[in-house]
């Protein structure tokens, strides 16, 4: 290591950090200590209490303030003479365009979501600025280097994609606790407290229901709140299960669920409250927030409640929503930081779990599943930040022979806890950094342009402000600066079926989609298909795009944003605002569980270590390489 040239490279460098969260705090500190003196940092987020166990630049008094700004001030206390420019903003903001990215020598990501990572990857490719990418979960983590033309880009390898659950698993045949959580959160909670105009599959499977005249979930005028709560209880846990049992075919090879009515769960009646809300003094500054746990004297979030307790919490929480938060009903979206919502969802999921013979869980655990809460510790973030800086210095020196991706493991592999691996070459068929066309199978006679744009172009391809051309005809454009008549025209096109567009989209048509901000352009060849089964709930299949994978080394077990849900947390780093436009329909298949992502990361890391090969076995410079994958053909050594 030529020390002098490292120092010069560091001094001269202008660095962009994206994310001032778990990794970001550690990274900013290590950069400053290492002598970096011109650092720009983007983070949309504000500080929360649950950040304080690892985001060490923040104090309790900072809760609610901008992460980027507070982080800057904290660093300046021990390095007052360096320049740190904070942006309390979304990295997807048009302010951060290709020209903005071009100002930097290297970009360092400490992000927590796939969407923002892909966006930054595209801007780095377009601006030709090297990117050092990172992610952690629990004791696991990794750092990768992406330099256009030299190494693969962030999107060259398939990423694990949101775990999706078939609708009927959620509505009729849950077999895991997460299925009950998804049901409680996305169906029941949404039905009772969310937007009434949203589609909701809650009742879809119950046969012979006569709900066409009246909605059973509506509270009747002057209906007693306790009666209403019990009626809902009996309907969803009793009647609906009983109705479902009528379908013998479903239960041929499955354990039959037990209907649960309130009279079974609470034979002594509901009124019996074992606690008393007055004597419970909560140390937290939120006693004014209604809580069923507090009302019922349940104190330990780690404890697994009995069916009776869950039933009491369910009724009490439902009652509290109507008594204390009636104004919000109709607009509520589940939020993991909303105590009453978490209580309701925990109780509902547990009652459903009892019905289906699935083990019950504590509120603490249920909250983790429902909120997709990441497992995060300070030590892994500190290690990963150190590795990022080491790679960043190599990038600045142009020392590309020595670029490495490094895995931080929980269990040593070949004696190693920190395992460096040579970066892969760019994937020649990557739709992001090469120009390989994608293939979209879709029913062109029933699918609207809107669905293609939302489910494929925005959601899967991660475009922000797409433009869509059919041959030479522009059929859609998003973004600012449109003439009103153009905008109206595009809005009309959105609702048109593909074959009915001004330039019809048929079998064999080629679409060109482009995002000017990301400077990303790709082609999609359309293949018409009539039927799609339940495993393809989008009613479309995109090929050539990185779909769900089992045995891939990927940078993290991450997921996509859950549309319209509260901002969810994923891998550590910052939490960019990934919530989508209000009113956008949520889809069951886009909801996933963090535990499984965690497992996915573990699997991917395990694969990394077990299939890795040591080259030059006797030399100091052992390198780990992955088994050649004939399909991808890109895992070549960089020379």
């Amino acid at each position, binding site marked *: *290591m030529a020390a002098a040239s490292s120092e010069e490279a560091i001094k001269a460098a202008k660095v962009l950090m994206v994310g001032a969260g778990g990794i970001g705090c*550690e990274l900013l*500190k*290590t950069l400053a*200590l*290492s002598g970096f003196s011109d650092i720009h940092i983007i983070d949309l987020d504000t500080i929360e*209490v*649950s950040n*304080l*166990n*690892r985001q*060490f630049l923040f*104090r*309790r008094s900072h809760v609610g303030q901008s992460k980027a700004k507070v982080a800057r001030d904290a660093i300046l*206390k*021990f*390095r*007052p003479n360096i320049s740190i420019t904070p942006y309390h903003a979304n990295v997807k903001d048009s302010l951060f365009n290709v020209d903005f990215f071009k100002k930097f020598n290297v970009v360092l990501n400490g992000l927590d979501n796939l969407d923002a990572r892909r966006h930054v990857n595209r801007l780095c490719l377009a601006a030709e600025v090297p990117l050092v990418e990172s992610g952690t979960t*629990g*004791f696991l983590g990794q750092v990768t280097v992406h330099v256009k033309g030299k190494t693969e880009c962030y999107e060259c390898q398939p990423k694990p994609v949101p775990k999706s659950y078939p609708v009927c698993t959620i509505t009729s045949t849950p077999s895991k606790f997460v299925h009950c959580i998804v049901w409680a959160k996305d169906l029941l909670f949404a039905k009772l407290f969310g937007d009434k105009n949203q589609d909701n599959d809650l009742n879809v499977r119950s046969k012979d229901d006569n709900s066409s005249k009246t909605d059973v979930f509506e509270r009747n005028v002057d209906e007693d709140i306790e009666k209403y709560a019990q009626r809902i209880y009996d309907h969803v846990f009793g009647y609906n299960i009983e109705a479902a049992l009528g379908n013998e075919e479903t239960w041929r090879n499955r354990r039959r669920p037990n209907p649960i009515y309130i009279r079974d769960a609470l034979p002594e009646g509901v009124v019996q409250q074992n606690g008393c809300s007055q004597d419970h003094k*909560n*140390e*937290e500054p939120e006693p004014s927030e209604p809580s069923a746990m507090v009302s019922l004297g349940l104190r*330990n*979030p*780690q404890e697994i409640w009995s069916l009776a307790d869950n039933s009491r919490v369910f009724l009490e929480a439902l009652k509290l929503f109507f008594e204390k938060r009636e104004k919000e009903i109709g607009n509520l979206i589940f939020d993991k930081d909303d105590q009453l919502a978490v209580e309701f969802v925990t109780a509902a999921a547990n009652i459903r779990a009892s019905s289906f013979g699935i083990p019950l869980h504590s509120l*603490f655990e249920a909250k*983790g599943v429902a909120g997709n*809460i*990441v*497992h*995060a*510790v*300070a*030590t*892994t*973030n*500190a*290690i990963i*930040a*150190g*590795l990022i*800086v*080491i790679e960043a210095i190599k990038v600045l020196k142009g020392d590309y022979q020595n670029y*490495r991706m*490094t895995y*931080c493991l*929980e*269990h*040593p592999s070949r*004696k*190693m*806890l*920190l*395992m*460096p691996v040579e970066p892969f070459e760019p994937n020649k068929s990557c739709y992001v950094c090469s120009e390989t066309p994608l293939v979209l199978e879709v029913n062109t006679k029933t699918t609207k342009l809107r669905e293609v744009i939302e489910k494929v172009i925005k959601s899967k391809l991660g475009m922000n402000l797409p433009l869509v051309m059919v041959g030479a005809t522009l059929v859609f454009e998003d973004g600012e600066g449109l003439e009103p008549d153009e905008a109206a025209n595009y809005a009309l096109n959105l609702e048109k079926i593909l074959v009915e567009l001004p330039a019809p989209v048929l079998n064999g048509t080629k679409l060109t989609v482009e995002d000017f901000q990301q400077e990303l352009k790709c082609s999609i060849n359309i293949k018409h298909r009539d039927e799609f089964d339940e495993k393809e709930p989008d009613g479309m299949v995109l090929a050539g795009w990185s779909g769900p994978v089992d045995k891939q080394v990927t940078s993290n077990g991450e997921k996509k944003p859950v549309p319209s849900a509260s901002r969810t947390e994923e891998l550590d780093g910052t939490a960019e605002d990934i919530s989508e436009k209000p009113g956008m329909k949520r889809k069951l298949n886009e909801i996933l569980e963090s535990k499984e992502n965690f497992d996915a990361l573990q699997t991917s890391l*395990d694969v990394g270590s077990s299939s890795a090969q040591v080259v030059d076995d006797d030399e*100091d*410079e*052992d390198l780990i390489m992955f088994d050649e994958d004939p399909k991808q053909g890109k895992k070549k050594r960089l020379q």
Partner: protein
Amino acid sequence: MDGGGAGAGAEGELTAQETALYDRQIRVWGVDAQKRLSKAHVLVCGMNGTTIEFCKNIVLAGVGSLSLMDDHIVTEDDLNANFLIPPDESIYGGRSRAEVCCESLKDFNPMVRVSVETGDPSLIDGEFLDKFDTVVVSHASLKTKLFINDNCRKRSKRIAFYAIDCKDSCGEIFVDLQEHSYVQKKPGGETEQQELTYPSLQEAISVPWNNLPRKTTKLYFAMRVLENYELSVERSPGETTLSDMPAVLARMKDMCDKMSLNESQIPAPLIERLLSAGKKEHPPVCAILGGILGQEVIKSISCKGDTIKNFFYFDAADGKGVIENIPPNSAN
């Protein structure tokens, strides 16, 4: 110098405040581990860029108490890899490293008691050690490390001992947990009780080199040469420089001859790097070593997860973080 209340949930359940603060990490290691952590007392001897990383990590994690021992008066050199010392002489002037670092660390987590212990680590007496469950020594001579390790082993309770040093882009951690039993998580998710027996530092470094596997990391040998040389000329760690290269190489030849190791196993450029490092610490390497040590201490206190047995090495030149088990045949 009291840093406020100790972990309030040390007895019984965690408080609501603790549960909220530690939510994300409880999801990693569980409530029981968090409770054990809040009852543990840790002593750190020697404040530098690497140990402050470690201190930051365990204060954030919510250890019961942390005591810092380092009477050296802060100088400008100490500012290099240290984010706990504000670069303002009116703040640090005339004060010890332990005092200044203590003040900053307290801020990180009001639920952890951080305090200063004055004194010379090389004179620590056994009874004093009884106040702690974990002792971390950094930047100390081999003699001092052996002395403290030996004292830890003589106490009736188990005191975990760690030595950690960063030499620019290289680093070493030594671990002695004596007898350690812990819960290991198997890949399938089920757990299993494991017992480990650790050798003392003296036992570990006395293993003849020709008994070690040929693939043992070169840093292990290079670090032994350096500390042996420093001991023989009574130098403090890091005071040896490039000008000592010939003498250090002569010492290396001596040691290799005695233990029948081919000299080529210890590359001269590596020795050169260690010598030119002097006291310099590379901040990214401090973060990595402090992170690894932090999670090791958390694992050992919580008796959960595989601990390192018994050396860890990191070298930024190849990017590997390697565990060495020395002697390799010791019981596990």
